[in-house]
């Protein structure tokens, strides 16, 4: 092992409470924008994720919500190290490498070496949004689902076929359909295939990046129910990414609201929906339509002005200050509001937080 052997910072021993599976600290991801053909020079950066922190306890579902481009997928990819974080820590409690059950070790995914990552890849899986684009159209269902087993050299061909059939049953598909191709399935069924593949290695932790956004409501319900059943059955921990606040309320135990690369508010589900404190959370929630005509007619909406600013040149101070109905100047445009714990496990990044019922 050469330059990959960068290990943990020894004068800052890594610690997490025992129930904690994942702890993200000050995660930053910038995408450089370069110019020039021969000597590419960085002229700016997309500040996709600008120092966010959150944690996920074992067996729970943590949701990240926010509008398009706010950095949800980038966060997810950095957590799994499918992208290299610019800085920050992603602490993960892994099964101990000596295989003794019940013993754990904490690894910083952001600085883990290749061998550690390879081991972690078995424990952590991702399901993507688009059930059409995320499956190779030329592979049969059996080879799609068995792929992770092949990559990690698990079992022989017969074992793998058995496992594939078992997985198809788990996700509610016909185990006889191993030789079909993705186009022979509907959207919801394809998403189940993606879930079956993610389950192949018995992961402990799954990132679900908008797993139902591309599906019709009737099919969404099937997939959401399946995710819940699998969590109960296998004790999975989920990082659930979505832009639909109604789905998140149904699925998540704790929720973080992101705006333009930062965490605006983090709280347990009931606190967030019943007593949201960040002006952006208020606006976001008040914009979500409720399928009830009487409620809809009597609701007062907070209509935000303008568009989300560019992450290449985000507003100074609080990033929401250009659209915030509560902003006071110059404080909000000069001073970055820290994510502060305003009541137990309710974190808000706003200089003027206020409980407001919007639902």
């Amino acid at each position, binding site marked *: 092992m050469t330059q990959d052997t960068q290990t943990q910072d020894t004068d800052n021993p890594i610690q997490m409470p025992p129930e904690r599976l994942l702890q993200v600290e000050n995660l930053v991801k910038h995408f450089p924008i370069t110019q020039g053909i021969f000597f590419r020079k960085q002229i700016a950066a997309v500040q996709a994720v600008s120092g966010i922190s959150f944690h996920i306890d074992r067996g729970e579902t943590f949701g990240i919500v926010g509008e398009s481009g706010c950095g949800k997928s980038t966060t997810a990819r950095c957590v799994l190290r499918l992208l290299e974080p610019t800085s920050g820590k992603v602490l993960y409690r892994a099964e101990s490498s000596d295989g003794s059950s019940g013993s754990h070790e904490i690894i910083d995914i952001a600085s883990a070496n290749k061998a550690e990552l390879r081991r972690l890849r078995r424990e952590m899986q991702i399901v993507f949004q688009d059930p059409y684009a995320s499956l190779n159209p030329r592979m049969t269902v059996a080879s799609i689902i068995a792929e992770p087993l092949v990559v990690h050299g698990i079992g022989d061909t017969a074992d793998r076929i058995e496992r594939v059939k078992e997985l198809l049953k788990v996700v509610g598909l016909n185990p006889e359909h191993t030789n079909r191709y993705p186009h022979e399935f509907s*959207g919801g069924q394809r998403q189940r295939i993606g879930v079956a593949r993610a389950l192949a290695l018995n992961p402990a932790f799954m990132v679900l990046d908008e797993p139902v956004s591309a599906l019709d409501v009737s*099919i969404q319900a099937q997939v959401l129910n399946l995710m819940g059943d699998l969590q109960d059955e296998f004790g999975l921990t989920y990082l659930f990414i979505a832009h639909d606040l109604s789905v998140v309320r*149904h699925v998540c135990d704790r929720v973080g609201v992101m705006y333009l690369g930062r965490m605006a508010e983090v709280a347990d589900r009931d606190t967030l929906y019943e007593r949201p404190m960040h002006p952006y959370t208020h606006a976001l929630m008040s*914009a979500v339509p409720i*399928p009830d005509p009487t409620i809809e007619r009597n609701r007062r909406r907070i209509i935000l002005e303008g568009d989300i600013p560019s992450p290449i040149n985000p507003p100074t101070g609080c990033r929401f200050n250009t659209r915030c109905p509560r902003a006071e100047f110059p404080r909000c445009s000069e001073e970055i509001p820290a994510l502060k714990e305003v009541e137990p496990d309710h974190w808000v990044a706003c200089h003027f937080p206020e409980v407001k019922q919007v639902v």
Partner: protein
Amino acid sequence: MSEPLLQVSNLRTFFTTEEGIVRAVDGLSFTIHKGEKFGVVGESGSGKSVTALSIMRLIEAPAGEIVTGEIHFKGQDLLRLGDEEMRKIRGAQIAMIFQDPMTALNPVYTIGNQLVETIMLHQEVRKSQAVDIGIQALDDVHIPNPKVRMDDYPHQLSGGMRQRVMIAMGLSCNPDLLIADEPTTALDVTTQAQILHLMLELTEERDTAVMLITHDLGVVAGFCDNIQVMYAGRLAERGTTDFIFDNTFHPYTAGLLGSMTRLDEVREERLYSIRGAPPSLINPSNGCRFTPRCDFAQDICGSKTPLPREFGDGHWAACHFAPDLDLSRVKRAERVG
């Protein structure tokens, strides 16, 4: 209710494909009144867009064809008009906005160019007047600095701004009917709220009827007077928004309501879910097309097509057992709080 503006009767629009004939819209009738906000909901592939394109006479031949039907608009049958006459109606009296404004806007012309062209096509005005009308139209949809924005190209605008431009263009000739096909589906929820608010405000002001196509029952709840639920190219149910939400007679509508997560409620573990997926529209089986997914289906459902029946007050349902099913367990299944 006010006078009928658009009356669609027994519309059938089919497509010929390699696999066979797709019966995309298969015997659909409905009426939209002057100034009415009419919602069309249904799953992907249920025939919402094909219905809209049929009204606009934008179904592409030879693959696509309106096989039967009449579409009366202000007294004349659009299906009998010549191309030239239809062109005069399109844009002027019936305007349409699409899910993806990028496909409807020409990328090589400025917003101003396209607005002025639309206006001059339908109104007897000089160029300078058309420019003024265009600037006013952008101002009406709350685009800041409308004069300056006239010189922008579509790619210089955000998705929300482009959709505002489409609304400005759609309303610039004061149409009687605006067809909006998933106008906010590609947008974020805060932008969606802006756009819906704007559309409602402007069309109420001008008494413009809107046919709002969406798959989001939440969106129609706040916007529409009446809604039509489509399933597999046919009518499932239609009625006042309140009636459909509070008192549906159709298992499919009830299933949709039951499978939705809601912002204002925490439900128990499981959502109601409609099993399976929508059927193929090539050689669809006899009977009610919802049969294989319906929890209430009986023998007759698979053999006999349930025709839409009216149950008073403009409430129509196409189910053999309407209005006798107890759908409360589906609609509010396992809901708490």
